[in-house]
């Protein structure tokens, strides 16, 4: 009995960690989607780029500076993606946009392979490796960093969108770009900002998670696709939805891996996702079509 409780707890910890990452990336995905209606499937690559550049920077500068550098670098990469990829393809059809962002994904992988090669990389945990024991289950301190980061980001973004002029301007663009531009909002700058922020958020996710899961040049794509799934599961564009969707997918995966078979982890998660979509075609929080 006790053992089964500790096992469940252990699984929940794993699920929450993965879920936090999905949620963070999905929030970045929503950010771009809301302003541009572009589903940026290269979002997961920001996680990989953030993690690997932080690992590199750390060899030269202290950890906090390295992290700041990595977040800035990937935010700039996000800006570059907007400038060189999506601005020229303005108004493209959905299949073309999906292909373009997937091609960008492959481009980032190709570039990362040249820079970092094909080895797995990792960072030491931020605050020691001493596991915390709760009811027989063990919790690595890094998990708290991951969950804490998500919660802080979610709160900060909520404040940004509700309390600041810039945030309100961005919401205006999401609602109606034409009307927003008539109100004197520079829509172009909002698009740029959304890409930069989503790049930074992805990098942050990569940095906090790389001490737990190793990363290599092709670790990003599946994370990005799952974040896309999470964003849709929670209702496209909704950040509370992204949080809930992220934790749901993370927990489902962990439960499937723990109680059924770790081999069928992805299949279980996506079967449930399909079931949700078939019952509620616009996601849990989505407005009906």
């Amino acid at each position, binding site marked *: 009995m006790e053992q089964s409780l500790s096992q469940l707890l252990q699984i929940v910890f794993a699920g929450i960690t993965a879920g936090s990452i999905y949620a963070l990336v999905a929030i970045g995905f929503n950010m771009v989607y809301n302003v541009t209606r572009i589903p940026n499937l290269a979002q997961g690559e920001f996680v990989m780029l953030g993690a690997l550049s932080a690992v590199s920077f750390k060899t030269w500068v202290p950890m906090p500076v390295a992290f700041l550098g990595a977040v800035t670098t990937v935010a700039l990469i996000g800006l570059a993606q907007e400038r060189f990829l999506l601005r020229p393809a303005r108004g493209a059809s959905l299949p073309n946009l999906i292909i373009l962002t997937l091609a960008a994904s492959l481009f980032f992988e190709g570039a990362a392979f040249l820079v970092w090669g094909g080895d797995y990389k990792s960072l030491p945990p931020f605050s020691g490796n001493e596991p915390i024991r709760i009811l027989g289950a063990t919790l690595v301190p890094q998990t708290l960093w991951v969950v804490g980061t998500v919660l802080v980001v979610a709160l900060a973004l909520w404040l940004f969108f509700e309390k600041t002029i810039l945030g309100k301007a961005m919401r205006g663009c999401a609602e109606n770009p034409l009307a927003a531009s008539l109100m004197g909002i520079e829509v172009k700058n909002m698009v740029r900002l959304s890409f930069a922020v989503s790049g930074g958020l992805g990098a942050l996710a990569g940095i906090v998670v790389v001490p737990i899961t190793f990363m290599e040049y092709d670790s990003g794509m599946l994370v990005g696709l799952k974040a896309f799934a999470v964003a849709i599961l929670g209702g496209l564009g909704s950040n509370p939805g992204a949080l809930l969707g992220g934790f749901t997918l993370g927990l489902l995966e962990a439960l499937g891996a723990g109680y059924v078979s770790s081999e069928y982890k992805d*299949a279980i998660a996506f*079967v449930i996702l399909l079931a949700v979509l078939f019952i509620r075609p616009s*996601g849990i929080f989505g407005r009906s079509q």
Partner: protein
Amino acid sequence: MGRGSAVNRAVRARLGKYLGLLVLALGIAVFPTLGVPNYLQGIAVLIGIYALAAIGLDLLLGYAGQLSLAHAAFFGLGGYVSGILTRQYHIPPLLVVGLVLCAALAIALVVGIPLLRLQEHYLALATLGLVLIAENLAVALRAWTGGLSGLPGIPPFSVGDLVFNSNMQYFILVWSLVLIFAFLALNMAGSQVGRAWRAIHADELAASAMGIDVFRRKLQAFLISAAAASLAGSLYAHYLAIFTPKNVGLLMSIDLVLMLVLGGLGTVYGAILGAAVLKLLPEIFEFLKDYHLLVDSMVLILLVINVPDGIAGGMRRLVMRLRSARPRPAAPSNEVENLEPTGNRRPV
């Protein structure tokens, strides 16, 4: 314009429609006499196999406008079922292909009914989920599929005593199928069904208001494309004698959509052109080694940005520009209107 010119126009339109098929048929007939090296013959076979799946997907994506990333799953169904049944149970390949087609249609029907009620991103995601499930199963059902290392030693395709064991035999088999399927697809596209698909692509609500059974038409395209993909998978397994989870995965699905976008959506010929470009690109850039992925993806990005309607679309625009440069009235609009890419365009 008089009646005569209208008839002329109809004849010309019909000729134009089948001219490509004629060129294709000639190409297939001439290819064996060219003395192409064996290695290039092999690539030509693979291009044909991919073209088969891509033409099917073109009916669904190019004409009916429904984006599916699930078709690698059907390709994989064909490959694995053909591989397992002919290798372990020694069932004649031709019979197995029949079984594969039935299985693909049955599965497409069961999956398609809930799936095709979804739209745009939701459809893309659901089909993405399907392909990830299929990839997962292909790896995990090790006893059947051989796991990550795949299913080796699949016997060659055969019909009665005729065993296909040279590249040229496969070339003739595969490209005859491509020719037949392209002919059928063009006819479907030009018929009432094809017009219904295009109407759905342009505006689903308007299409249903015109009395089109939107769901049934979508399902029809989905079934045909699933069958084509599974047939291509069977041929692939017999030809290469090995089938691995890579052939079922998301990247394979992306490849199929890429072929269409590159070649030109909703043109049938575009599917063939796109398959050729996408399979030849890595061969051309092979010398780049580590830079391979970088250059491949860059070429794709440049193509999609600069020629958004694909090679077929770009060629048509070129022909139209040349024509209109001549001192005679511009091409009548009815030749062009139904081929314009419509739908899915969204204001940014």
